[in-house]
């Protein structure tokens, strides 16, 4: 799920997955989709199919285990989410390869197909979800109607879970206060502005260019002004072509980083006392990105997988993500209903304007524009 760990993560994940497959003995509790005899959990598309939430909980407890993959404990508060779920329902959560990438989750599901160690649920990036819906089992949680329509698949194979807005993180001691992307052109930012990777390959860097486009007259259908912005930034000598990570930020090599707001906020917490790390969502350039939640079609614990979804989209689950600095997908509905954790919600970086979220077609069009122009213009 993490966008940062690429490359070796995939290789390692593949090796691990193969190793795990070879070592694990066949488990008797696995693969029995019709555990209660009456309900086929693997094809249930709502809790009603089990006969209500209580029956779903019972079916899940009978399975006793839930396999999750690529959920770092310090990412969007997943450590607490996993703990709370296990405690509430008395189900053992087996967390495999916490630092793996989205693609590695899909690879693991394919390689471990039919094994009791296969992942039950996925938390993947939107692009990976779009190209793998055939692997997902359709399921609609009780709060499905409160997930905004543009953030879910009408067929129910996936729904966005939590996300954030693109932001500018900066060390307030090293550079002047940032209020807009235009500020970053000033001489005070010479050699200091880093993008999180190459936008033709890394999702967060792609989002950075899209944000710059929105701030400079572009739109969801037009990423070109974003490329122009970075060309100008490079000409001014302000663009720093270093891949930022916690080490470079702590060391002061990357004083300004364009990244998701929840990552910048988490960075600030980690560096408290060392760096004065601030996070700003530029006004009028609010670009949103959400992760995707889905159930593995071949989940070895189909009822537990569905209960996990119900938990994640409940008020409790959504508030846990919020406590980790991520924006839960039901936030608007929960604000209206007054069930949101108000303190955590008001602590999120302020964003002015409606967030722009790309459709799959817009994403593909922007990606091919970058493929043709980014390296050429930035070279």
């Amino acid at each position, binding site marked *: 799920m993490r*966008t940062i760990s*690429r*490359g070796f993560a*995939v290789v390692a994940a593949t090796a691990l997955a193969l190793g795990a497959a070879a070592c694990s003995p066949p488990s008797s509790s696995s693969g029995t989709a019709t555990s209660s005899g009456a309900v086929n959990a693997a094809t249930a598309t709502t809790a009603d199919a089990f006969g209500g939430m209580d029956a779903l909980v019972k079916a899940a407890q009978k399975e006793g285990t839930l396999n999750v993959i690529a959920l770092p404990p310090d990412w969007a508060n997943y450590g607490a989410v996993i703990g709370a779920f296990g405690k509430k329902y008395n189900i053992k959560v087996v967390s495999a390869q916490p630092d793996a*990438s*989205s*693609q590695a989750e899909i690879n693991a599901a394919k390689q471990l197909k039919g094994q009791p160690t296969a992942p039950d649920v996925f938390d993947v*990036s939107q*692009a*990976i979800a779009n*190209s793998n819906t055939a692997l997902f089992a359709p399921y609609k949680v009780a709060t499905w109607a409160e997930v905004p329509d543009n953030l879910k698949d009408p067929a129910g194979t996936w729904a966005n879970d939590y996300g954030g807005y693109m932001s500018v993180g900066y060390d307030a001691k090293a550079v002047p206060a940032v209020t807009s992307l235009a500020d970053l052109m000033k001489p005070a930012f010479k*050699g*200091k502005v*880093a*993008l999180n*990777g*190459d*936008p*033709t*390959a*890394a*999702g967060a860097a*792609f989002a950075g260019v899209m944000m710059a486009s929105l701030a400079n007259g572009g739109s969801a259908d037009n990423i070109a002004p974003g490329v122009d912005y970075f060309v100008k930034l490079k000409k001014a*000598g302000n*663009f*720093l*072509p*270093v*891949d930022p990570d916690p*080490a*470079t930020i702590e*060391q*002061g*090599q990357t*004083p300004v980083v364009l990244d998701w707001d929840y990552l910048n906020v988490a960075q600030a917490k980690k560096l408290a006392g060392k760096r004065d790390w601030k996070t700003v969502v530029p006004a009028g350039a609010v670009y949103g990105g959400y992760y995707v939640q889905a159930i593995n079609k071949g989940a070895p614990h189909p009822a537990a997988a569905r209960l996990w979804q119900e938990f994640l989209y409940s008020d409790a689950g959504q508030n846990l993500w919020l406590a980790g600095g991520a924006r839960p997908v039901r936030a608007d509905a929960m604000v209206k209903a007054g069930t949101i954790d108000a303190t955590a919600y008001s602590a999120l970086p302020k964003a002015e304007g409606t967030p722009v979220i790309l459709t799959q077609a817009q994403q593909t069009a922007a*990606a*091919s524009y*970058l*493929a043709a122009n*980014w*390296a*050429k213009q*930035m*070279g």
Partner: protein
Amino acid sequence: MTTTTSGRRWRTRLGPLAGVLPFALLVIFFLVVPTLVVVVGSFLDASNAPTLGNVTALGESIIRDAYVRSVVISGVTALLGAIFGALLAYAVATANPNGALRRVVTAACGVLAQFGGVMLAFAFIATVGFQGLLTVLFRDLGLDIYGSGWLFDTPGLILVYTYFQIPLMVIVFLPALDGLRPQWREAAETLGGSAWDYWRRVAGPILRPSFLGCTLLLFANAFSAYATAKALISQGSPIVPLKIDDAINGEVIQGVQNLGKSMALGMVVVVAVVMWLYARLQKRTAKWLR
């Protein structure tokens, strides 16, 4: 009777082969199978239908430029590494064989030749990056050594690669220098030859194949290097290994995994040519080192 004889015959035939089995398995799983995956994948599209598209895409300017850059960076760092490494190796070879200098230099080279990846890249960023130790020091003196960010482009790769090429050259070239017998020099001098004559007519011709062979090895070493470049360069993926990484692991442009494989196939071809040259030179060198 017949069964025992044939059994024994089998055993004697298979006996020597059994020892090679682990190596054979290793080669099959870590060389043959991956190579086949690369070759087959190069000719398939995203839905596994046969295509030549991945291979013809290698001619696109952006990929062709990456190959040219990869070859230039590898060539330049191999030459720099070979020249400076050979000089250092000569200094070591002529020193006391049991002395501290030789032991320290060979030990240091053994470590530095393997020093790469994130650590090496970060070391250079922290030294000559924008906020680097030297950059800041020189900036205070009014000198700008950072420029427009050369460290994160081709010149940076050349500098950083040369850093591990020189020690590697020392390690691989030292045995050839040790093979130069002092008697040859004495013989040359006895016959009235000058130092120049000795180097031009005796040592030079003997060392030339080994020197060229080591240079080719250095070329292949730089050509296939990935981790250091990955850690140092975050924009543009200027060289082929980084382009392959983008194609296989990229999150933005999907369905081009097999283009990555065809680029890898291109690298296999380049390295195969280099290795063939290396093997030919090696044959000529071996004659003198017996």
